[in-house]
């Protein structure tokens, strides 16, 4: 399967934080009955739903390398039903301004199409239009009678944005949930590249859950695995008007290697060295805080993990038209593979030499 095909399938799938199962099934199928089954030694799901894809390493005591990308997307949840209209609350960080006039799917007894309706300008006061409409004021219209709604929908049903992935020019793709299903596809790419190699490290690619709610899946999966080193693969802001040039990264110039408190200095060096050796174009981002990705959790698992972070440049993050360059995704997968192959006992030893 081509990475763009997997990307399309995965980003179109339903999987808001805490209810990732439908999207998870695509990965599980790929690695149990699909072409990925020969790429790994074992697939395991933990109690919160994180998917662990393990490929064993060489030797008696191989260094354990955890790679993580999150499966969940931001979404909404039904919080009340009022005369057949749905009130809702966010799952993860949703900018309320992207919701108005959006089509959604309510995942109740069936998948129901709905609209987050916007009051037409004709019915608004002049000063209303100057302010953003608050989420609490919005409702979802299912076009059904209150009785039908009561029979089909329950408080707690999840809601996702209706959006299909599409290809733009230059192998650029736009869709929902690129954050972070693009990272998941990069992990798959990495495993594909590793399949014919004997590497020393035991590589466990973890497709995590509930990252958008505070990297929850990463906390429990990293505790459970207790890896020696861990890399998170996420997205970072793609350049666009209004951003300073160090705040946005170019599409098509390769993965972004992050430096900052959540990145072990030797892991940063190893990633850049692997990129140079593999002739992989890359960019560098300086992060002042450890927060914001699965690396935040991985780094402080148990007695501490040497951690790192790779990001795919992504424009319009947390909208339903997140946009990236396919090449960046593929190169991220390639860099992950190069890094994985370079991890050995000597490198591991050096991680405690400060």
């Amino acid at each position, binding site marked *: 399967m081509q990475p763009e095909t997997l990307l399309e399938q995965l980003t179109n799938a339903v999987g808001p*934080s*805490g*209810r990732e199962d439908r999207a998870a099934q695509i990965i599980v199928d790929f690695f149990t009955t699909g072409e990925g089954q020969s790429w790994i030694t074992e697939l395991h799901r*933990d*109690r*919160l739903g*994180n998917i662990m894809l393990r490929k064993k390493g060489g030797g008696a005591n191989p260094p354990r390398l955890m790679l993580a990308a999150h499966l969940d997307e931001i979404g909404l*949840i*039904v*919080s*009340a*039903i*009022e005369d057949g209209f749905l*009130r809702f*609350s*966010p*799952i993860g960080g949703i900018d309320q301004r992207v919701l108005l006039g959006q089509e959604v799917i309510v995942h109740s007894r069936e998948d129901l199409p709905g609209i987050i309706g916007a009051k037409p300008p004709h019915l608004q006061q002049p000063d209303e239009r100057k302010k953003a409409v608050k989420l*609490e004021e919005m409702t979802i219209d299912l076009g059904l009678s209150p009785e039908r709604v009561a029979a089909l929908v*329950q*408080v*707690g049903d999840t809601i996702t944005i209706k959006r299909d992935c599409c290809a733009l020019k230059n192998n650029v793709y736009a869709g929902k949930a690129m954050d972070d299903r693009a990272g998941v596809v990069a992990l798959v790419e990495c495993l594909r590249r590793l399949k014919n190699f004997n590497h020393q490290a035991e590589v466990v690619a973890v497709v995590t859950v*509930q990252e958008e*709610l505070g990297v*929850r899946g990463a*906390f*429990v*999966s990293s*505790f*459970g695995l207790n890896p020696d080193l861990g890399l998170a693969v996420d997205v970072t802001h793609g350049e666009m008007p209004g951003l300073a040039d160090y705040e946005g990264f170019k599409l098509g110039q390769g993965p972004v290697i992050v430096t900052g408190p959540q990145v072990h200095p030797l892991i940063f060096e190893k990633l850049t060295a692997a990129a140079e050796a593999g002739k992989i174009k890359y960019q560098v981002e300086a992060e002042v805080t450890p927060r914001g990705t699965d690396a935040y959790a991985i780094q402080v698992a148990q007695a501490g993990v040497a951690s790192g972070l790779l990001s795919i440049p992504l424009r319009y993050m947390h909208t339903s038209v997140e946009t990236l360059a396919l090449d960046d995704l593929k190169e991220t997968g390639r860099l992950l593979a190069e890094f994985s192959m370079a991890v050995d006992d000597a490198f591991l030893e050096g991680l405690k030499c400060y």
Partner: protein
Amino acid sequence: MKELLRKLTTIAAPSGREEPVRTFIAAEIQDYCDELKVDTLGNLIAIKRGGGTKIQFAAHMDEIGIIVTTIDEKGFLRFGNIGGISPHRLIAQRVRFKDGTIGVIGSEKVDDLKDLTLEKLYIDIGAASEAEAKTKVGVGEIAAFDRDFADLGQRVVAKALDNRAGCAVLIEALKRVEKPQNDLYCTFTVQEEVGLRGARTSAFGIEPDLGIALDVTGTGDTPEAPKLAMKLGGGAAIKIKDSYLITHPLVKDLLTELAEQHGIPYQYEVLPFGGTDAGAIHLTKAGIPSGVISIPCRYLHSPSEMLDLNDLEAAVRLVVATMEHPITL
């Protein structure tokens, strides 16, 4: 249960000072469990064995309160908050210190109520001087709201229904359960209001297969209320989501099935803010499937919280049903 609730809510025990309520609860349940212990942070753990799945029930014992930080030259006290207290809810309220001293919360002059912060408030214990104040209250001392329990029939009003209501449910369930089909670790936790602290360390020690918190939740059934689905009298609330937890689907389904099976009135809950002990339990170690049985409650984090005894009873029945159901995950 009304009487139990009255006694529980009367005790003053804010976060970090749970001893009086822990002692009371221990006395209530000691004949109804196989083992009773207190851990490092002060959580009370009552174990009742039935074999099989290890379930941790968690009800937090602590309530919100205030802590004295300074006594000024005129005998007025300045304070900090223990847990989530809105300064607007404090003006003209009374607090009670351990030895029974009562204080009134007053405010400096503010031109706009929007500018009111905790720093502008003080407590007046009626002392004429700094020296006199110091004979009654010390720096570092804590106080809870001072408000009597009110019996309105099917509904009651009290301070600290958050979360003595949850404690009452767990105590009553322990008394009623006859044949537990699981290993029950009933934890009365500490310091939930300041960050789910007791739940976190107790779950680490117990490492249960399943976690269920018992706590209160808000309602949307008062005039021009925020749009919440929960209401007094709607039954035990099965939580789906709050800011700290998305209930594991297995737990949601289990509780729903049990409620349906036993004819227990229930409602689903989505709370757009706040968290409970389950928020900490489910992220312990390698992850623990968790959920919450909530008791709907109006006027949360005020001295006059209100609940419906039918909801309380429904919660007890649901907890007992869970305890007596052989659970396989």
